[in-house]
């Protein structure tokens, strides 16, 4: 029995650990500053710009990029595309870590973080879209944790508990898709309350739909992108089953991503036509909007299609990277660049180095925990005791 889990990294001191360690120390220093001196001491937030990159990147991008969890598990368990099975565990793990870190990062941005349970358990503001986001994220984080536990139970050898959770797979998957649909879209819907602040090219009553559809493209692309990264760094943890299916997953997800991006482009154009905002396209913001639409939606859509037709993995992987960057760009545009567009540039927001530092710190934590888990638990390989049991 060859369990690839037995061959972990050899020494604790390697380049990765040193860099990660340095970033974590930096993060801890800023953390102390944040909670002793207040938000004003570490951020450039002000009364006109209450939300900065901790919301724009850590929350909006974090949630969108963790969409691989629901897209992959839906493809495999609901649509019955069993050939994507090998991609489910890495995707679920990434999604779980992604959401956990979103909630963690939120602690920095909230004025009184320990009150985060208030809106759910103490006094419910049901008219708020943020309430919906909070409720869904909390429930979905729970679902993702349960979906992740079989890998942990296999690692710990808890067969009975594992069997119980495996039986719940379909119900959990459906619940997960419902919750994801709701909170992915309500993140966009958060901004529907501020038509006077968000530039018309990005403001639309369809914002929730835009956010939901683009999250699917983000999820598919992230699975491809992470698979590529993991292949480079964690190849030793992958079994033949995973490696055999890897190219099939990339091809299938690339095809789906191409279609979704095409649909996304179509509904964005419908949104533009619906509000008759074409005339803004000739402005400076219009140019920027075109960069987003052509460079980060149409281009990857075309590249995905080309890569799938030619069966060219490297084109598909490049398209995935462009799509991931495109999602980040879009969320930044909605939350920061096109937000407060009416204010003079002197009153606009740009993050401090410390704010960026915390965001890097959070991403690093994610990578470290991902490595810790994938080098121990059966994520990229099937546990020898449970082969072919899925």
């Amino acid at each position, binding site marked *: 029995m060859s369990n690839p889990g037995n061959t972990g990294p050899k020494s604790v001191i390697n380049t990765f650990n040193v860099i990660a360690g340095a970033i974590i120390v930096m993060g801890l220093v800023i953390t102390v500053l944040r909670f002793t001196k207040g938000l004003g001491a570490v951020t450039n937030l002000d009364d006109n710009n209450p939300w900065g990159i901790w919301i724009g990147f850590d929350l909006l991008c974090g949630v969108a990029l963790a969409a691989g969890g629901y897209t992959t598990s839906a493809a495999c368990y609901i649509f019955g595309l069993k050939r994507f099975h090998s991609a489910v565990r890495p995707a679920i793990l990434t999604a779980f870590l992604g959401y956990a870190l979103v909630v963690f990062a939120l602690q920095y941005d909230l004025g009184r973080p320990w009150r985060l349970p208030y809106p759910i358990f103490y006094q419910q503001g049901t008219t708020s879209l*943020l309430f919906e986001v909070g409720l869904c994220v909390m429930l979905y984080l729970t679902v993702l944790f349960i979906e992740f536990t079989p890998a942990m139970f296999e690692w710990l050898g808890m067969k009975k508990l594992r069997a119980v959770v495996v039986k719940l797979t379909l119900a959990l998957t459906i619940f997960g898709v419902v919750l994801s649909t709701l909170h992915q879209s309500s993140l966009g819907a958060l901004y529907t309350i501020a038509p006077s602040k968000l530039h018309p090219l990005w403001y639309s009553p369809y914002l929730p739909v835009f956010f939901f559809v683009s999250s699917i493209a983000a999820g598919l692309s992230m699975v491809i992108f992470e698979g590529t990264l993991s292949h480079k760094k964690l190849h030793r943890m992958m079994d033949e089953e995973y490696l055999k299916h890897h190219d099939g997953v990339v091809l299938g997800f690339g095809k789906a991503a191409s279609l979704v991006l095409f649909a996304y482009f179509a509904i964005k154009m419908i949104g533009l036509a619906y509000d008759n905002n074409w005339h803004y396209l000739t402005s400076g913001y219009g140019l920027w909007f075109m960069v987003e639409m052509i460079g980060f939606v149409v281009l990857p859509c075309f590249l995905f299609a080309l890569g799938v037709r030619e069966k060219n993995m490297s084109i598909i992987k490049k398209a995935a990277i462009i799509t991931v960057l495109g999602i980040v760009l879009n969320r930044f545009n909605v939350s920061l660049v096109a937000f407060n567009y009416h204010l003079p540039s002197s009153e606009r927001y740009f993050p401090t180095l410390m704010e960026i530092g915390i965001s890097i710190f959070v991403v690093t934590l994610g990578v470290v925990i991902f490595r810790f888990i994938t080098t121990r638990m059966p994520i990229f390989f099937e546990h020898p005791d449970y082969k072919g049991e899925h």
Partner: protein
Amino acid sequence: MLRRTFLGMLGTACVGASIPGVASASKEFNGYPGSKGVLFDATRCIGCRKCEEACNKVNELPAPDKKYDDLTVLDTKRRTDAKTLTVVNKYKSAKGPLFRKSQCNHCLEPACASACFVKAFKKLPNGAVVYDESVCVGCRYCMVACPFEIPAYEYDEPLTPRVMKCTMCAPRLAEGKLPGCVEGCPKEALVFGERDELLKIARKRIERNPDRYIDHIYGEKEMGGTSWLYLSGVPFSEIGMREDLGTKSAPELTAGALASVPMVAGLWPALLGGIYAVSKRKDKVAEEEKKEAVANAIAQASSQAEKTLSEALTKADVANKRQIEVEVKKAVEEALTPKEEQEENSEEES
């Protein structure tokens, strides 16, 4: 309008009954009857900052950097912040310098209240929009939501930051007193009263002095209506007020998105369950077809084999018969061979 109808269609059936906030959003709300407000007349304001001073005093806010009689402050644009709940700004116009006071407008359906996920904001029946710091999580979505950019935040407070904004002096109103700024205004640029009355007063002023005022009461309809109302002699955009806010209230803006929530929660499980059932059925049918094909193939192969066997058997039969015939013939021939030969043979033997 169409998309509202569409989203409404999605929503009304189920949501209307289940979420009261959404249901009320689809109807027009014109404020609590008899609720109070303040009318600000920009043609009367002289920029003396007495209202700022009064506000600072009655709300017990920290002392300002420059004294209130220092009017050079007016040369730079200011906004409300955590220590200043109201500010007066100066604007240049063809009619000379104009002044405009800003503070919370106390919307009839406040964006902050609709956006708050712990209900820290509340519109009181007397018209004031008040904030409860004992539940506030500090997410600052209220600040994102407010179209007038009023709520401010105590960014330098590490553990107990509050959202700060004008309360219309709700505690003073409860005592039967006027809001601090109204009491402090020496030029009667501020009038406190029932909102309905204020609208009448404002209309009368416009009617009597059509040259002095433009024909618009700001706040009557903006963002679904506000308890603070404004009169001006120049277009409101010239005194720093946005004229593109529309007349939809904040709850109306988000009603569509909220209405689709129960629809997704209701439809998705059925839809996804259906897809699962179909894909599973497809697999099952494929499996059955495969089994059938295998069975057919086996049946065909065995019947083929039987046929070949029987053919072989018949062939063998024929061959056997022939052999027997040959053998018999041989025996008969042997039997009929001439006797001489036999005798010859016997002689040899002996």
